[in-house]
């Protein structure tokens, strides 16, 4: 009953309607295999949206995720080229750690220096991109330079699903457990919902925000490898502007930009919603030029709907009984 009225239910409904609409024009789209492919394609967005969700929950925002992803992806590719013998797991671990470190830079600037998160990540966004140019000398790393195991990991199938999808599933489950069942997870909500009160319950607001940035950074690092390995190419501009998709997914998923409000289900559904639109437009034969306007309209609609459902129900002090004389 409460589920039916929740944001997640509304979003699930919207997603189903969207799929039904697409199916009328292209029935093949809702074939299980294709849906699995869409999920796989949306995996990076899901992973980053979850990281971003945690950051937004703590009243921050991370505009640097896409740049972080690109930098980590480039480092993964360069590592692979420089040391073809290096096991892929080592590379994955290394770039995840690197992503976490870049997130930590953001987090420290917010926590210790007290610069507003939007300013910090606006700055690091451009810096990270610039660093990619410096370390790669602006050159591409191409498919034939990468080793086969490096490229194979995200697409090798496990129980019928590519590893990339499993990564997303693992991150979904991991974030859900973190957010619902750990003290740290609950403190994300506390810090964003009421930072003042958080101090009174012994939660260090700055440290919690820092942790959120580290988490978001680590997920961006992991996605950096997945991205580069999947598309088998690395260059300065990969995932340019992707941070806006990530934030849009969160917004559609009902993550409150002012902090403290949001759920794992919402973020995942928001990402899937965008993913389905992205994947469906080319096949239902809507001109690709419509894509941007559609996702813009979706964001605005979602924001309006969310604000409607969240509006405080006015307290009723008047009794609806007999009228007073």
């Amino acid at each position, binding site marked *: 009953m409460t589920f039916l009225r929740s944001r997640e239910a509304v979003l699930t409904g919207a997603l189903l309607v969207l799929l039904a609409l697409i199916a009328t024009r*292209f029935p*093949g*789209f809702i074939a299980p295999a*294709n849906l699995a*492919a869409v999920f796989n*394609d949306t995996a990076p967005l899901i992973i980053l949206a979850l990281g971003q969700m945690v950051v937004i929950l703590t009243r921050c925002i991370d505009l640097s995720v896409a740049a972080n992803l690109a930098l980590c992806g480039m480092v993964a590719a360069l590592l692979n080229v420089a040391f073809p013998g290096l096991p892929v797991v080592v590379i994955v671990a290394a770039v995840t750690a690197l992503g976490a470190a870049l997130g930590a830079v953001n987090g420290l600037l917010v926590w210790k220096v007290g610069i507003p998160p939007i300013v910090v990540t606006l700055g690091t966004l451009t810096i990270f*991109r610039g660093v990619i*140019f410096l370390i*790669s000398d*602006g*050159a*591409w790393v*191409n*498919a*034939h330079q990468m080793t086969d195991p490096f490229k194979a990991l995200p*697409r090798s199938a496990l129980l019928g699903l590519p590893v990339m999808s499993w990564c997303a599933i693992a991150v979904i489950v991991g974030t859900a457990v973190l957010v619902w069942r750990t003290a740290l997870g609950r403190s994300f909500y506390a810090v964003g919902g009421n930072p003042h009160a958080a101090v009174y319950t012994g939660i260090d607001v700055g440290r919690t925000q820092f942790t959120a940035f580290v988490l978001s950074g680590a997920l961006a690092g992991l996605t950096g490898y997945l*991205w580069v390995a999947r*598309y*088998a*190419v690395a*260059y*300065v*501009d*990969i*995932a*340019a502007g992707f941070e806006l998709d990530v934030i849009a997914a969160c917004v559609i998923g009902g993550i409150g930009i002012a902090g403290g409000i949001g759920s794992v289900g919402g973020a995942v559904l928001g990402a899937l919603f965008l993913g389905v639109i*992205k*994947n469906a*437009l*080319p*096949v239902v*034969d809507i001109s*690709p*030029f419509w894509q941007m306007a559609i996702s813009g309209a979706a964001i605005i609609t979602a924001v309006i709907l969310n604000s409607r459902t969240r509006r405080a129900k006015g307290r009723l002090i008047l009794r609806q009984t007999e009228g007073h004389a």
Partner: protein
Amino acid sequence: QDDVRIALVVKALGIGFFDAAAKGAEEAAAELGNVELIYTGPTDTTAEGQIEVINSLIAQQVDAIAISSNDTDALVPALQKAMERGITVISWDSGVAPAGRQMHLNPSSNPLIGNMIVKLAADHLPDGGDVAVLSATSTSTNQNIWIEEMTKVLPEYPGINVVGTVYGDDLADKSYREATGLMQTYPDLKAIIAPTSVGIVAAAQAVVDAGKVGQVNVTGLGLPSEMAGAIESGASQSFAIWNPIDLGYSATMLAYELSQNGAVAEAGAEIPMGRMGTLTLDENMEGAMADPFVYDASNIEEFKSIF
């Protein structure tokens, strides 16, 4: 020593094709002896970015600008200003409207390229079939011209049915997704023509991932270094490109001739370009460098480490 400064302005830094062109330009500079080459361009492929670059080149009073443009018209005012200040301006690869340059160097003639990309697909489809085009951005000048030229010669390839054109915006992920979309929408698709070096690589990857190697042939314009994997995997039978090293070399030579040796850009003029011979200008002040060259399994090894 009196240095001649020639600026090679590209669409954006960090694209393999242009890096190769810069190599050729360096070669020309070395050959000419007194040339200082400035290889530059904006961060992403925008006209605004190129204008900023042009302004700073004007300020440095370079001798010549050879540019591959992001926008036919938007650069005209800035380049006109450059010409007013006595700077030689030519465009190469992707052209600028005639008002904004003295001449334009086409890598090859547009009709030849338009014909080549469809021929590459048709050669492997004796019985004809559905093919689709995966282009760069919707606004890329040369891709649009080539697709137009291709459409003109289509009747000469009976059975080849172009089912659609999509745009990957020269982004790897978008091109990949568009290619995947094409294969879903048109299950009988036989070939994807991608006249862009970013798109062709992404399309080849998409074909491999969809398990359609052998069913869908990816072809178009690409760099041997980037396409070596696709040829190897069989996702692409063959593709074409002109030699970007030669292109950069020729552009530099032409710029030098116009700015230092008194060559005049006029209809019918024949301008020498070092080891590449001479370029003949048409009434639009354009000339074509050479035919595109086809790469396949037989010669890819030889070229993949060059550009």
